[in-house]
């Protein structure tokens, strides 16, 4: 399952591709929404680990505009609910992730991203 919480950790690792290689851009996606249990404590702890701009941009790419561009200081319930939905409930089942730098394409099929590179692409 490619949820945005995982996508937020994935960078391109092709040979020589070391800058501007994050976040991978989604295209041709099929999305499924699956409800997950709301856990505000988890979200509060996880926020420092999130690359905020990447998350907001990616959510917008996928049509979800509920997150503010700037990470808010006040973590109210409404904000945490939006964050919960974006991080944990949107599943990309099919599609492609493209590196913003070298344009390498990582396919997603049946919810499993294939991050493998061919021998000549490994750094």
């Amino acid at each position, binding site marked *: 399952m490619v949820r945005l919480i995982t996508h937020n950790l994935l960078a391109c690792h092709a040979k020589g591709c070391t800058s501007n290689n994050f976040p991978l851009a989604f295209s041709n996606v099929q999305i499924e929404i699956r409800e997950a249990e709301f856990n505000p404590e988890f979200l509060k702890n*996880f926020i420092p*680990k999130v690359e905020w701009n990447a998350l907001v941009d990616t959510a917008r790419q996928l049509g979800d505009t509920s997150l503010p561009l700037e990470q808010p200081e006040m973590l109210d319930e409404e904000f945490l609910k939006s964050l919960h939905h974006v991080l944990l409930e949107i599943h990309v089942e099919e599609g492609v992730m493209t590196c913003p730098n070298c344009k390498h394409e990582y396919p997603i099929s049946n919810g499993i991203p294939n991050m493998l590179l061919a021998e000549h692409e490994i750094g």
Partner: protein
Amino acid sequence: MIPTPDLSHLTSTDYEHVYEPAEDTFLLLDALEEHAGELKEMAPLTCLEVGPGSGCVSSSVGQILGSSTLQTVYLCTDVNPHACKCTRKTGTQNRTSLDVAKAFIDIILFNPPYVPTLTEELVDAQELRGIEGSWAGGSDGMEITNKFLELVGDLLSPRGRMYLVALKENNIPEIQTRMVNRFNLQSTIVLSRRAGREHLSIICFHR
């Protein structure tokens, strides 16, 4: 006692392509169970398993941690696409080889292909992405493990720990010394057990 994860959805046909839980797997499960209290207290946010195979080990961590109120993101990465499917079925998130951008994995699990083989055998096995890749470990059984050990320093969070399965032939004291010298990672042996011809240990690395 933590119940072993339910693997009843996997059939003997799956195990033609994917590593079936064996003594090494069970030793790792026992080590994790021994640390159950510490792991719960740690309340890890992230858990990365390299080479999950059936998905049994990550699921078991899920069971260990599951009873508390915390939540953990499980990441799994296997070169073998069958293993990814099985792991997914077994109930964790899957990747085939991922690159994590930041140092913040709280728990890393790795039961690597640790059997000493010829390097060519290892290269073929990795290329085939099938069941051979479950054991063929190349020189000293360490070629895959060594690649990964180079990354661990970057992946592990400050409070993070990594559980690694190793064979006596892998030269455990050398691994431990090297990890201290290169990455300042300390380690302890959680459990050791003889299983047939194999003398297996679980090493736990931490900062």
